[in-house]
């Protein structure tokens, strides 16, 4: 079924009787050409592009819970391509371009909204670093602007300009950055994949991998063995757990990142803002909630919940930046499990097991990467060679000393 304004009106006038299931709930078949483990944003996008762009068939997505229940369903919805390093920026710019055409591509309104993102500048050294970054972005075909203090003030006059511990001196802006309705991304990809014959199998947890003579033959699941020629793992947050089934240790730690939303408010913040000196970032959803976050809690965790010190720390950053939000109320906090990699950048690569491919290590940059991650992983699965923009995301970059370390923190995942 194709969605359109016309369809919405027609259905409204006929009692909404014509809407059909957005995806089927098929029983798993005995074997597939491709199994994607993980029905989150990246897994669903991979299946979608594998079917649509790479013409592949006999594809299944296995999801232990419900579709879109991973980090695509629990992030702060920001898209941007304001990266610095050669290994990252072309990939994220590719992703941003895919976002820009996504809704027309999969015929689902994911509310891709390019209201702009600013990274505030507080020191001269930060301005130097953002100048370097902004130039790298433009060299890679992205957009970037350096704003001075007065330009920032004109945008958000109620920021703390006059009594700040860390004065605002300007900002790096990417106008094409913005937000997307996160759940709708999962649903749009799921619907698009399902329409192209992909079997989306929910409540199907992978419990083991059948590997013989170094080659994958399929996966054991809570719904029985399912064979496959090619298996792609896209389970960020649980990567180490799933890949341990293939006997692999990863350059990844799992950490909890909390996110926050306030009660609904009339429009207050138009775009996205990051406050590096305060470890705080914020945007406002179309529903009116301020959506914000800060640092990860900082210790290995699979608990999907965090602790009070980080909640306080994030609120402190918010109040330091925006003294007018003192009487806005925090409505809800939640936690997601991040695949924190050793250099803060992801991995999309083959594994030592033939036919087994890995996609993970997204840290907290995974949501904005969803379209390109799906596309590049599909490319790797279908052609057994990396997509040009994802070439750097190899396992052996650590062995070869080719880390992609945007923050310069080294092998300390909780600092990326």
């Amino acid at each position, binding site marked *: 079924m194709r969605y359109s*304004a016309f369809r919405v009106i027609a259905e409204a006038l006929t009692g909404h009787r014509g809407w059909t299931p957005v995806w089927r709930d098929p029983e798993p078949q005995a074997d597939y050409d491709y199994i994607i483990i993980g029905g989150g944003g990246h897994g669903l996008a991979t299946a979608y592009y594998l079917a649509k762009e790479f013409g592949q068939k006999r594809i299944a997505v296995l999801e232990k819970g419900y579709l879109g229940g991973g980090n695509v369903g629990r992030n702060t919805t920001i898209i941007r391509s304001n990266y610095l390093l050669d290994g990252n920026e072309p990939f994220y710019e590719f992703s941003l371009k895919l976002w820009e055409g996504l809704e027309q591509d999969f015929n689902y309104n994911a509310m891709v909204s390019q209201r702009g993102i600013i990274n505030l500048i507080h020191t001269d050294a930060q301005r130097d670093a953002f100048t370097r970054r902004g*130039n790298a972005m433009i*060299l890679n075909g992205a957009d970037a602007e350096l704003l001075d203090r007065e330009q920032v003030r004109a945008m958000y006059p109620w920021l703390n300009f006059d009594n700040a511990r860390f004065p605002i001196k300007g900002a790096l802006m990417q106008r094409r950055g913005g937000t997307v309705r996160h759940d709708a991304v999962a649903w749009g990809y799921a619907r698009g994949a399902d329409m192209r014959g992909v079997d989306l199998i929910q409540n199907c947890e992978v419990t083991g991998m059948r590997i013989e003579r170094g080659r994958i033959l399929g996966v054991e699941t809570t719904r029985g063995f399912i064979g496959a020629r090619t298996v792609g793992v896209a389970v960020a947050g649980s990567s180490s757990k799933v890949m341990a089934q293939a006997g692999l240790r990863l350059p990844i730690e799992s950490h909890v990142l909390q996110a926050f939303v306030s009660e609904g408010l009339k429009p207050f913040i138009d775009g996205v803002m990051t406050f590096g000196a305060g470890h705080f970032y914020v945007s406002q959803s179309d529903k009116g909630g301020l959506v914000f976050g800060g640092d990860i809690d900082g210790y290995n965790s699979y608990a999907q919940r965090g602790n009070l010190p980080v909640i306080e720390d994030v609120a402190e950053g918010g109040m330091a930046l925006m003294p007018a939000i003192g009487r806005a109320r925090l409505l809800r906090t939640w936690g997601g499990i991040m695949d924190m990699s050793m250099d803060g950048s992801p991995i999309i690569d083959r594994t030592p097991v033939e036919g087994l491919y890995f996609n993970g290590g997204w840290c907290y940059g995974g949501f904005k990467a969803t379209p390109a991650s799906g596309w590049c992983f599909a490319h790797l699965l279908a052609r057994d060679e990396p997509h040009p923009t994802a070439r750097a995301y190899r396992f052996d970059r650590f062995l*070869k000393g080719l880390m992609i370390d945007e923050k310069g923190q080294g092998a300390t995942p909780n600092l990326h």
Partner: protein
Amino acid sequence: MSRSHRIAGGQIDRTSTIRFSFDGLPYTGHPGDTLASALLANGVRLMGRSFKYHRPRGPLSAGSEEPNALVQLRTGARQEPNSRATVAELFDGLTATSQNAWPSLRLDAMALNDRLSTFFAAGFYYKTFMWPAAFWEKVYEPMIRRAAGLGRLTREEDPDSYDKGFLHCDLLVIGAGPAGLMAALTAGRAGARVILADEDFRMGGRLNSERFEIGGQPGADWAAGAVAELAQLPTVRLMSRTTVIGAFDHGIYGAVERVSDHLPEPPPGKPRQTLWRIYSRRAILAGGATERPIAFENNDRPGIMLAGSLRAYANRWAVAAGDRVAIFTNNEDGLRTATDLHAKGVDVVAVIDARADGPLLPGIRHLRGAEVIDTRGRLGLTSITIRQANGRTETLRASALGVSGGWNPNVNISSHHRARPVWDEAILSFVPGKAGPPGLSAAGAAAGRLSTHGALASGQTEALAALADLGRASRAQPLPEAEDAPVSITPKWYVAGGKGRAWIDPQNDVTVKDVKLAHQENFTSVEHLKRYTTLGMATDQGKTGNVLGLAIMAGLTGRTIPETGTTIYRPPYTPVAMGTLAGRSRGKEFKPTRLTPSHAWAEEQGAVFVEVGQWLRTQWIPRPGETHWRESVDREVLATRRSVGICDVTTLGKIDIQGTDAGAFLDRVYANTFSTLPVGKCRYGLMLREDGIVFDDGTTARLGEHEYVMTTTTANAVAVFRHLEFCRQVLWPGMDVQLISTTEAWAQFSVAGPNARRLLERIVDQDISDAAFPYLAAGNITVGGLRARLFRISFSGELAYEIAVPARYGDALIRRLVEEGRTFDAVVYGTEALGVMRVEKGHVAGNELNGQSTALNMGLGKMVSRKKDSIGMVLSGREGMMDPGGYRLVGVKPVAPDGKLTAGSHFLDIGAAAVMENDGGWLTSKVYSPHLGSDIALGYLKAGDRRIGERMRAVNLLAGTDTEVEIVSPHFFDPEGERLRG
């Protein structure tokens, strides 16, 4: 405004009158009132508008679960959006206004959405607004954003202050209803340290809203007596107006105390609210239960509320919410509202009881097997239409309707560790699951024990269990007599058959139809249901409606409710003001401010300061007549190079390292060698991370055979010390080496320039001639007899020293240096001049030590000794880091002397297009060199060591500048180092 709806009784103080206003109209109430009870007493039922359809709404509840009666409380900078009228305590002068309505609450233009509701079914926006693509940001979304949201934030700074506090206890009791009071009494009498916290301003929970008797006295009196006894117990702390917001790890709970919200403004010195972090050994959740409605057509009109809330308004606040009242219930508790209101003389027109069988209430029209199928009254209920067991429909005039669909135990906090609540068929509700936060148990209604006796009994039982866990044996005491009525409930989630809308989540306007549509489109998992329809995502977080929604979904899918499952609750229990969570960490107090020893002196000179981490450092010190910062900085640089300059370098990290293995230890942590350093000398040290990237640099001096003092960069002082402790304790625990951070212990000044020695000779007690104290000498000295340290090191390229005295003498020393320096026209320079001189000398600093660069990148590759094991030595040799084409530190000069450079510009070859393939690297640091009379810069350039002397471009695409530059050695000034040995 109509006549007063006050009836007899209640817990309000009628001897005192409070004046307040709502939407500009004046009203009166009494102490003990909430804004909602006082408005209802004044005959005002319409208090808000819903989120999506802008439906007129009155209070659904009498508590913190309220989804409808949200108002903007107070005015000016204290205006507080989305405040629940049902829990806002009345105070004299309270001003409230309605929100999310224009032009007025009664005439809201956006109510057009209600007329068009068929077009706004769940998820409609995912299916449209896609064409043309550019219209989303320009047309559709701005329209949606303007319409969305609830209340409005003023853009003014919150004028109130907030506090944080820490409490410790044996037992935290959450909720002061019958279960919580009994638990607190049991534990408090046994001598345990107890905290009893309750969100209400009056403890007692439902006892304040019921006519039950406990031990032969009214329940509210029993509660008051219990509170009075608890107040006398020395180990019990009573915290009313305190909401426990979340259960965190290891028995830590967060709680918000509303210290001053019941007052016009906080008294002087008092915060508005306090965030408490409560450390408990055990906790009991006695947070009661929340009633839920039944969905039927037009069940959202002002005047329709939860039956228990209707009863609470009558019993506690002496308000009859309507003159003709009806009750719709599927359980025994709904009947209590009818009997209580009837007893108070309110006209109860009918009790519509979904249960088919059972005795009838005496003296009240009690219809068994009946249901409410529709209602009327746009801005307030006027009539209800009912269908009796025999199918006959009837319309009854009514201005209030109490609805009871059963009670949901407030399991929220028990699921904060993601434990799933479990279904209890007896009460048709979820109760706390087993795997809740360790140490937390539930009692009373929160545990599904819905009778008063059950609450008292389980409160005592759980407290005894907690005491046993705490090692305090105690025995059960006889419980006071209390009602123990069965729940007697029949499943009734919604009234089927109608064509109109029946609300489940009133604030977000989620109706039964939306759930059906979600089912039709296969959004059948509870998480999909929530996310697709927005069920449970309003400011009440689904406290009243969630169970309804999933029960309806269960019915549609043919699964049981336990099979369907439930979403879980996350902190906070009720929304918390951002100001409270931030406390006093805002404005200038956001982070601590560290001041250098010369700060007071510099302030007297009118210095300009700059934030360097938490430090404030002198950036430059303008002199009269200087109008541009460059004038000051140029002067400071030139004066230093001409004669002598003084700079406070206290912020550099200082670590004393002692022990027989101190030298060997330094050899491990530095890439270069220190064990061979002679006593009395210092050496530049390069420290790598284990991954071979440069971590930090600085000079380390050997003051004795087994005694070194290390300096680190300002930025890494803390991280380096932590790392050294890791090496010492974890990697090489057998080494005899001790560390202490002395960053704050010593005030340290750089004295640089041709006259540096002559100036210092007037200060120090020792001979510091070049022979006695040559380049790179270091040692303990005295200044006027006081112990001090002197290092002959230079960051500026000049003859230079760093002199350190105990921090408390730092102020005296800067004044002495300045005084003695007059002879030499000495200048005190700040971080800008420091930066100019270090770039002129080609020294790396923060912009080059970016955590991404190797020693090789910095031109220091030879410093990494391969003859010994050191942190980072092995991995610095990985192929990708040894690439001859990799970045190398270079100097950059504009070809035209007046050419401008910008740090962050990228290198491009002449004629090359501005695309990434042609990127050569970037300018890391740029200064204006008054010595050379032009901008100069350092940069990382690919294979830069082989490109010295070439011409390239430094391009800043952000500013549109493109400057031809010459690649030069990074040592712009005195490359032979003759001056610093002078």
